[in-house]
């Protein structure tokens, strides 16, 4: 765990990329997040997170086909890498361990 650092927002973006596997790009990630988390998401933030994740090797990307809706511009499609998947698993494991440890406590 010490080798990687993933911010909360980055983690959400990475999870969304995993959900939309193969078809994820800036705008639909933002919309997906907006729906699921009910908080205001801006495109630039999502893009910065995506580029950072790519620099860290959690996602990979390729330029996809052009759509008329974008004025003929291509979109960059992101998919999760094996490293990214493993990191998500590790983080989930850590959290579950922590949650498990907490059931012993008495919250009265």
């Amino acid at each position, binding site marked *: 765990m010490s080798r990687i650092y993933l911010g909360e927002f980055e983690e959400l973006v990475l999870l969304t990329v995993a959900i939309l596997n193969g078809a994820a790009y800036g*705008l639909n990630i933002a919309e997906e997040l907006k729906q699921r988390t009910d908080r205001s998401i*801006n*495109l*630039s933030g999502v893009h*910065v997170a995506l580029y950072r994740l790519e620099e860290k090797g959690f996602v990979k990307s390729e330029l996809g086909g052009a759509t008329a*809706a*974008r004025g003929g*511009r291509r979109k960059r499609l992101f998919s999760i890498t094996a490293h990214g998947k493993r990191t998500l698993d590790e983080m989930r494991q850590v959290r579950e361990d922590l949650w498990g440890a907490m059931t012993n406590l008495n919250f009265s």
Partner: protein
Amino acid sequence: MSNRSQKPLPPGWADRLLRFVCPAGLQEELIGDLREQFEQHVAALGEAAARRLYVRETLRFCRPYFISRQLRAMAAESKTESSSPFLNPAMIQNYLTIAFRNLAKNRVYSFINIFGLASGMAVAMLIGLWIYDELSFDKQFKHYDRLAKLWQFVKFDVEKSSYDVMPIPLARELRGKYADFEAVSLSVSRDVIMVAGEKKLMRQGSYVEPDFLNMVSLDIVAGSRFGDNDVNSILLSRSLASAMFGASNPISKLIKLDNKQTVRVGGVYEDFPANNSFKNVTFLIPWKFFAANDPGAKRDRDEWDSNSYQIYAQLKPGADFDQVSAKIKDIRMKRDDPPGYKPEFFLHPTSKWHLYADFKDGVNTGGTITFVWLFGSIGVIGLLLACINFMNLSTARSEKRAKEVGIRKAIGSLRSQLVGQFFSESLLMAMMAFILSLLFVQLALPFFNQVAEKSMVILWTNPLFWLAGLGFSLLTGVIAGSYPALYLSAFQPVKVLKGIMRSRRSATIPRRVLVGFQFTVSVTLIIGTIIVFRQIEHAKDRPIGYSRSGLIEVKMNVPELYGHYTSLRNDLLNTGAVSGMAESTGSMTEQSGGTTNISWKGKRSDTKPLLMANFVSHDFGQTIGWKLVAGRDFSREFTTDSSSIILNEAAVKQMNFKRPIGEIVRTNGKAYSVIGIVKNMVKEDPFSPVKPSFFLLDYRNVNTINIRLAPQLSASEALSKVERVFNTYSPDAPFEYKFVDDQYARKFGNEERIGRLAGGFAILAILISCLGLFGLASFMAEQRTKEIGIRKVLGASVLNVWGLLSKEFLMLILVSFCLAAPISYYILSDWLKNYQYRTELSWWIFVLAGLGALSVTLLTVSYQSIKAGLVNPVKSLRSE
């Protein structure tokens, strides 16, 4: 609206912004996403909302992440040679290397250029500092914008005069009846002899009311201020406290004032800074003390027509100076028994104390602000001269480099690279000049402070100073570099290298205009300097009506000096060091007061002329050496002389007496008969006519001892003997004396300062112009080396060559002289109008200045032209 495409589009500038901040590689996908979102928003929320959201999203992209990626991308790009060679670090390094080599190769030229610009900048900086200091006057007060001093206009005869002295009851009136005043304080300033233990000092300070301390935001560093109930208390400035008591604690120490009353030190305050109207106030004493002890103040307590005291006021927030002035204007005239001089009170705001202190006939006519403008324009002109020089030399130099441009272009240099080359050279020089000018200013500042009577420092920590300095250097560098950078770099290499490109005559026209301008300024300054000094000399040589040499004055500010006239006089005369002694009201170099309460036979009843009153002892005339033109001096042999009067010539003229001796003049309810007429004596402004004055005998109404030192002894010897006599009469007071000729010379302070500054700038302007001329002449000679060689082969003499090269400059001088003469005539005759006693603008001054400029020019140019003429033609023709 009809032209609009069907599809709604987001604002174009948002896209441009995005292209600017985001790296090129990401733009397609980012704009794509934004556009897709935009279309969704249009469908869902309408076009207006969609556009608004689009802009908001785009602005969010201006975040550090994208900008730093963009910068990195740009930096990476500039490393690859293909794009923007201008920003390439290797190229910039190369520019600087070449620039330094060029500077080193042409040492003289570089020196002239950088030195000239640096001195211009240094002058501008000095003047800038001076103006900054002048404008910052009195701004230390917390309530600067609400403080004012009371002034009044009074009308003695035709014109309104202005005075800043007020009657005491006015302060009470303002405080009690006018709601606009937050605080009002009476104040009076005095030179006081202070004695504490062995220490005796004479210092200037003020008696003020407690409110005054708040008004001037007094900074108490030890002890406490005085309140309403304190009377025998004193506040010392930090410098006076250390002068009186050294390192020991001054609080609660006792000080004896003028050998009469004793006060206790209540506190110490930080000295008023040099740029403050109260900078000479070294101590503050409660007004109550003054009111209780000073006989004049006791007498004037309810006296509405005795104007001898200052009043300072602080208005309530929101009150307007003009409106309040209008309200208080007629306070005196509305009271009983209004005086004939019709006083009009008004407020003079603190912001105007220093720069706008002159009034003429009831209107503010400025004051020191004139000098701010004058020196400001001189600074700008000096800087302009230096810049012109810099540009002239840079452009002249660059023409020699046309071939270099050709070769650089031929081997593949881009135009943008040449532009960069020339700009970096001129910027480098401008920056070096800036650094050098800082050095100059630092070195010149102590001297400049002395001349200007200031204590200024370079504003090392003021960002504005650096911004202005660096900004100006950049601007000069860019302007000077623009001609070679933009014009030369456009040459076609083929033409240049074939030698078709010759500098055409038209190219030199701007340069001639600039040199002409420089000389116009120089000649104007020379003429100005001569006139200012002639005006000073003119007033100094004016007959003053008495003799100044060896005349000293001693203020009678301790009670021991009064009432011993005869014995003091005898003791002084017996020392042999004194040839005459008398007593009088006020100094010979000041006029202490006048009266309108005077009448004579044939006086017109509708006028109220002011006559200056002087009270003197019997020996006054003989001591100061006045010149009787008619009648006789006061004499002890005539017991009737207590009702005799002596008039000056101006008074006789005013009174229109045909046979003045024996006429009767009435003043203060007593009749005096005229026994003598003296020549006009210059007591006040040496540039104005002498005012009508009269002299009366009075041994009580005096405060100054006049002493004529005997010429046989040296001044120091005589003074020590005089001091010994004074010490027997007033052992506790320091012996303080003033030489009348020193005091008289001080009246020329302002004029001499202008004269010295104008002279300094004239020398500097000539120096800068000559540097430029020297450089230009050397380039012209160099450019025509071949021509001169051929001419010499064909038989031209050195004189011919000299004439050839000098002719052009002579023409320039003539033209600029023709411009400078009328300009300076206009300015100077305007200046001289300020003086009623003034010198003539003689034609020979102009001729002299013109000849001076001409000879300096010829000397400068001749060096180059004779050098060119002496070169062996074989050498100049063999090269190439």
